[in-house]
Each structure stands twice: as structure tokens, then as C-alpha cells.
């Protein structure tokens, strides 16, 4: 039975919602690691990942399909829709923790002129471009769940959440988009 060929079933596969000024859709599948390490390992990990891990709070770094999001002073979320960041970290000698969370998280893409307004229906952070510019990212709350918010363009966000909360997140965004 080794010939079974399973493909990933994303929790929000195919979900989409278009409203006036905002569109909400499930992100394509991605590889993700939760990376935790001390300062001594950062150079090696940055080299291994091909991306300079950001050290400044609320910032991210990108290289091609790979994005490294600062989560905490020793924590990054690395997202890659093509490559395998876990494999790249496995080659790094310095002590660190790279844990595959590709399936733990799923993502919702929110875009359009009202994107920030719709997210602010449940997220208490200031999402103005001065405070939360393109490339900014943060773990925060959205309604009653925790999310990682990543601004990919002036009017586009990636909302990462744990898979069992994704239905709630999507429905909330949809509700907020009604009559936004």
C-alpha cells in the first residue's frame, strides 16, 4: 500500500469571499517552521535559510518565496510556499529549535481598500501604514483567537491562525466584510 498518493487537504480549501472593497480567500498550501534560537545561532540560521532573520520587533524579511516573520526575541515564523525551510535548518549546527508547523497553521489572505478595517473588526492593533507598514508582522488577537498578522502590501494582509480556528477566523472576516 506504499503507492498511496495523498495530497494536503487544507482546512479552508477553496474558501473565498468577495465583498465591496475587500476580498477574503484561503491561502495556498505552504511549508512553515516555528524557529526558536538564541543570538549565537542567528548567523548560521540566516545563512542556512538564505534570509537574514529580522531582529527588530514587528518586522519581517523576505527572499523569493520565503518569508521570516519576527514573533518574539527568540522566535520566528518562516513561511515558504515552495522551498522546505525545515530541511535548510537541519543543516545548521548551532543549537536551535526548528519545528515543522506547516499543518498547524493555515492562512487567510485579506485584500482590498477595506482590508485593514475588516481586520480591525476583531484586532485591536493600530493598522495604519505609519504604525503597521508593509512587511510588518505581529502575533496578536482577532476576536477570540490568536493570529499572526503579516502585511504583504498596503492593502493586503496574510492572517495566519491554527487550523481548527480557521473556520472562526474566516467567518468573522466575512461577517466584518458585510456592510464594511
Amino acid at each position, binding site marked *: 500500500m506504499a503507492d498511496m498518493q495523498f495530497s494536503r487537504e487544507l482546512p479552508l480549501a477553496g474558501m473565498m469571499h468577495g465583498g465591496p472593497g475587500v476580498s477574503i480567500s484561503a491561502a495556498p498550501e505552504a511549508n512553515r517552521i516555528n524557529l526558536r534560537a538564541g543570538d549565537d545561532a542567528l548567523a548560521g540560521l540566516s545563512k542556512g535559510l538564505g534570509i537574514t532573520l529580522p531582529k527588530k520587533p514587528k518586522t519581517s524579511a523576505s527572499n523569493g518565496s520565503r518569508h521570516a516573520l519576527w514573533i518574539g526575541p527568540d522566535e520566528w515564523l518562516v513561511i515558504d510556499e515552495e522551498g522546505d525551510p525545515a530541511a535548510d535548518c537541519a543543516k545548521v549546527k548551532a543549537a536551535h529549535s526548528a519545528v515543522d508547523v506547516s499543518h498547524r497553521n493555515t492562512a487567510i489572505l485579506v485584500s482590498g481598500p477595506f482590508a485593514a478595517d475588516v481586520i480591525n473588526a476583531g484586532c485591536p492593533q493600530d493598522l495604519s501604514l505609519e504604525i503597521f507598514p508593509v512587511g510588518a508582522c505581529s*502575533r496578536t488577537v482577532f476576536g477570540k483567537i490568536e493570529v499572526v498578522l503579516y502585511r504583504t502590501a498596503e492593502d493586503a494582509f496574510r492572517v495566519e491562525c491554527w487550523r481548527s480556528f480557521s473556520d472562526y477566523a474566516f467567518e468573522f472576516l466575512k461577517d466584518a466584510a458585510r456592510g464594511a
Partner: protein
Amino acid sequence: MLLIHCPYCEEKRPELEFRHAGEAHVARPADIANISDAEFAHYFFYRDNPKGVAYERWRHIHGCGRFFNAARDTISDKFLTTYKAGEPKPELVEAANENKAEAQKGNSAK
């Protein structure tokens, strides 16, 4: 909803992202297995309940995830300052004055 300055995120963030975590500067005894009953009681059960400046632990649980310490005025409910875990208790005279200055900014704007 309060705004709380996270010393790791280096900015004020909404209270919803934080969780209170008890009194600060209560260190776990190094040789805990051998302390007396009285010492254990003081470590684990006894807590200050001051009117005025209280030292508290908070965790930015839905943010950077870090535990940090805060000095808060239990009368005004205001945070006087926050600082990283492991840092010494801050000198509060200065911090209290700063807080007062900030509060009075509204007046000077009149």
C-alpha cells in the same frame, strides 16, 4: 482596555494581548527541596497587597510570548513602568513623576 508597554516589542500594545502572572520578584529558592516549611510558605503563599506601587509579572502571551515585569499603581491603576524579566526593580521616584507629567499634558494643551 489598557495599553501596556512591552519591553521586548518596544511599544504599547492592547491589554487583550497580555496576561497577568502574579507578583514579581518572587524568586524560586535555589535549594528548594531543603527549605523549611516557613520558607516555603513565604515563597509560595505569601503575597504583598500594597496600596500604591505594586510589582507584577505580565506575559505578552498573544504577542512576543515573553514574561516581563511591571510596576503599577494600584490606586490609579496606571502602569508606572515595565521592564524585562531578570532586570532589577526600577527606581520609581522618577517613573512616578514621568507618569504625572504625561497625565498633565492635556492641561497644558488647553
